[in-house]
């Protein structure tokens, strides 16, 4: 295996701390997960890790023009190039700094790898009682071809605070970059967080993105994942509710074509009573793309009065597209309302016929219906610019020209 050897060589040259060394040894013992691993049964890393990579390599600076081209044009921008923080906004009551080491107690192989190799990322702390109206844009730029890079980020949202983020990873002058990102988010009491992930990188990019959210009482977190570009994407989104009346919401949209693969793993751990979770993932799969959805809801003993809803809807629009879906419920308390629904199908033939009989072309009619299908999830995004971008990307991906502006 190419990458494993690179990692060994790289780590031998570095002087890792005892903790990092033991985490790395732990990872190397079993290596990257394979399809024999239950959590990876539909997603093979084999191709991704057989390539030749440099590790944590650093390239050039990015120009202002390039930043402008890839940003949503928001006021607050945090910019990282090859993982290094190079620019940050000055906002009252919020401290932003570069990577700082922290330990997470997960047992995931890729988290262990991330911990032992990471040197880059961001640290954001929103102080208590702060409301930041303007969303904050986080832009990661990669400039080195064939690079395997770790981001390790931590966000803390203080008591009674509110904040919105948009995170985007963009390759510039390079294509084959493999990112292993880990983000730890603490939502303190009565805080409110919206975190949008725009995954629309170059055609040969690979991404493993793990986000762990820890919520205290009365906190609300909304995580939206928008997947459009990239060859291999694996999202691990985990919520842990450690206080009553916490709410976790997640929306996901995947629109894939060619040989793209997107794997969404979500896990909500209801550890406290009177909490809620809502999950809506929509997938549109074209050409030879492959989708994986694994949504797990766990209700612990004594976590009574939990409402947990999950829905996963998929449109398979090509003969060669594949979807593997595994919605999972593990319930250990009795006074709960939990449900999951999963549908896989096609566009309604009658609706298509209705439009075509009124002079709308086949492709356009399909696009309109697909758009309507995805809108349900897009409409949950509160930042207008992000919602508009999602709509634009969706239309582009469907490869149609809709003359009216939706």
């Amino acid at each position, binding site marked *: 295996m190419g990458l494993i050897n690179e990692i060994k060589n790289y780590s031998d040259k570095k002087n890792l701390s005892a903790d990092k060394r033991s985490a790395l040894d732990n990872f190397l013992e079993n290596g990257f997960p394979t399809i024999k691993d*239950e959590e990876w049964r*539909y997603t093979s890393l084999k191709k991704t890790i057989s390539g030749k990579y440099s590790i944590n390599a650093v390239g050039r600076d990015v120009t202002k023009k390039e930043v402008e081209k890839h940003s949503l044009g928001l006021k607050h921008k945090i910019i990282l190039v090859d993982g290094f923080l190079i620019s940050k906004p000055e906002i009252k009551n919020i401290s932003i700094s570069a990577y700082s080491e922290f330990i997470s107690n997960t047992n995931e192989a890729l988290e262990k790898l991330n911990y032992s190799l990471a040197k880059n990322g961001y640290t954001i702390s929103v102080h208590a009682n702060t409301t930041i109206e303007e969303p904050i844009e986080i832009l990661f730029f990669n400039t080195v071809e064939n690079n395997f890079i770790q981001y390790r980020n931590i966000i803390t949202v203080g008591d009674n605070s509110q904040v919105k983020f948009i995170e985007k990873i963009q390759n510039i002058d390079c294509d084959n970059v493999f990112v292993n990102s880990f983000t730890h988010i603490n939502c303190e009491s009565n805080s409110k967080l919206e975190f949008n992930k725009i995954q629309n990188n170059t055609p040969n990019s690979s991404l493993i993105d793990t986000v762990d959210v820890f919520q205290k009482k009365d906190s609300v977190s909304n995580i939206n994942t928008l997947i459009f570009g990239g060859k291999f994407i694996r999202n691990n989104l985990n919520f842990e509710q450690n206080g009553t009346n916490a709410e976790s919401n997640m929306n996901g949209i995947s629109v894939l074509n060619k040989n793209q693969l997107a794997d969404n793993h979500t896990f909500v751990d209801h550890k406290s009573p009177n909490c809620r979770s809502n999950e809506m993932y929509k997938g549109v799969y074209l050409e030879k793309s492959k989708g994986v959805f694994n949504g797990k809801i766990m209700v612990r*003993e*004594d976590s*009574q009065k939990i409402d947990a809803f999950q829905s996963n809807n*998929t449109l*398979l*629009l*090509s*003969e060669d*597209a*594949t*979807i*593997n*879906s*595994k*919605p*999972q*419920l*593990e*319930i*250990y*308390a*009795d*006074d*709960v*309302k*939990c*449900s*999951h*629904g*999963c*549908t*896989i*199908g*096609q566009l309604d033939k009658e609706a298509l016929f209705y439009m075509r009989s009124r002079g709308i072309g086949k492709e356009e009619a399909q696009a309109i219906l697909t758009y309507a299908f995805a809108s349900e999830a897009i409409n949950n995004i509160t930042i207008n610019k992000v919602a508009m971008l999602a709509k634009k990307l969706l239309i582009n991906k469907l490869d149609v020209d809709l003359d009216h502006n939706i």
Partner: protein
Amino acid sequence: MSEKKQLSEDILLEEVTSAEYKYGFTTKIESDTIPKGLTEKVVRTISAKKNEPDWMLDYRLNAYNAWLKMDEPDWANVEYEKPNYQDVIYYSAPKQKPVLDSLDDLDPEMKKTFDKLGISIDEQNRLANVAVDIVMDSVSVATSFKKTLAEKGIIFCSISDAIKNHPKLVKKYLSSVVPVRDNFFSALNSAVFSDGSFCYIPKGVKCPMELSTYFRINEAGTGQFERTLLIADEGSQVSYLEGCTAPMRDENQLHAAVVELVALDNADIKYSTVQNWYPGDKNGKGGVFNFVTKRGICHKNAKISWTQVETGSAVTWKYPSCILKGDNSIGEFFSVAVTNNLQQADTGTKMIHLGKNTKSTIIAKGISAGKSNGNYRGLVSISKGATNSRNFSQCDSLLMGDKCGSHTFPYIEVRNKSSQVEHEATTSKVGEDQIFYCNQRGIGTEAAIALIVNGYCKDVLNQLPMEFAVEAQKLLEISLEGSVG
């Protein structure tokens, strides 16, 4: 004709009487076992004791060798101490139970259960193994059944007899649906199966009765490693019921059965199971491990319908599946799984769509009470060639008490764009308002729960043959007794 009938009656009479007689000398029979453990020699001994032909011995040895290289699966969401496979006796003479002089000697708890299930006195005697004179009535019923089946050309016998008398059919279909190497337990079963049933329905024949009815009267203990092979030839139809609502107390802790169904073109098989093995006591001591592999294959336009009511066993590991190989074939799965006290169940189904226009329906209802854990684990796989296929799955769980758990693990794989799959699952408890409504109208809480549970399971119970539906309903009540409050 009447002479023949008389003769067969005589034979049966003798069989039964001598069997009863034999039980008197229990020590003598017990000596007819082989030592503990599983070795090649044991497999050879089993085959020799059953006078099997060479091909059968080869089959068993092959399975044994495969089993040696396999590991016991541990992916199911159940916890138990793995049995020591070298501490099991793999062959013993028919199961023995102490013979009672009358029903009055029966464990009063057991008697109460029988009464509640509404099982007739005759049948109670038989189930409890009371030494009584032969009930003429049921013997004649049994023989007349035998005659009707024979007239239609239906073969229904033990698998050992089938190996002797119908080797061609057995050779062709045995392990054609569940390969020897399919899993750890199927390999084990193939190596050491003691006995089981064989059924063949010829072309175009509609089996004139529920094979269950026959089963209930003639069925003797089939032991630990049961093997069932059911073949429905083109255009035939059969309904088969396995098991019994009556509580089965069994000394064997490990049960690893294999059931194979073959539905040839246009055939229709309905296979119902009521399982009520000993679940262990309130502290989870004892109880049967039920590790079963059940699978059916549907050829063109064929249909297989599995219905199961699972209330017993300490640990259940069971996934009745359908391979929808032929175009337009249909697979169905209806299940009620009840767990109480410390029981654990990991059960569900697999629907593997290979043919065009194939349809499958899954209705799974889980009820967990006490400190038990119930799991639904299912797979719906639609392959590339299975165009225009359709699946509908619904798995609901009902929780009673705050110490129990209920889990769903559905796997859905779709590989073409013209198929449709729907899956929904809910978990909830019996509504307080529902119970209050019943209480208000003079229905006690326990009765109210029974009422609500029956309503909840109705979709599945309706699929059972009539007489069992009634018994299964009562069985649910009994299984959940004392779980309220």
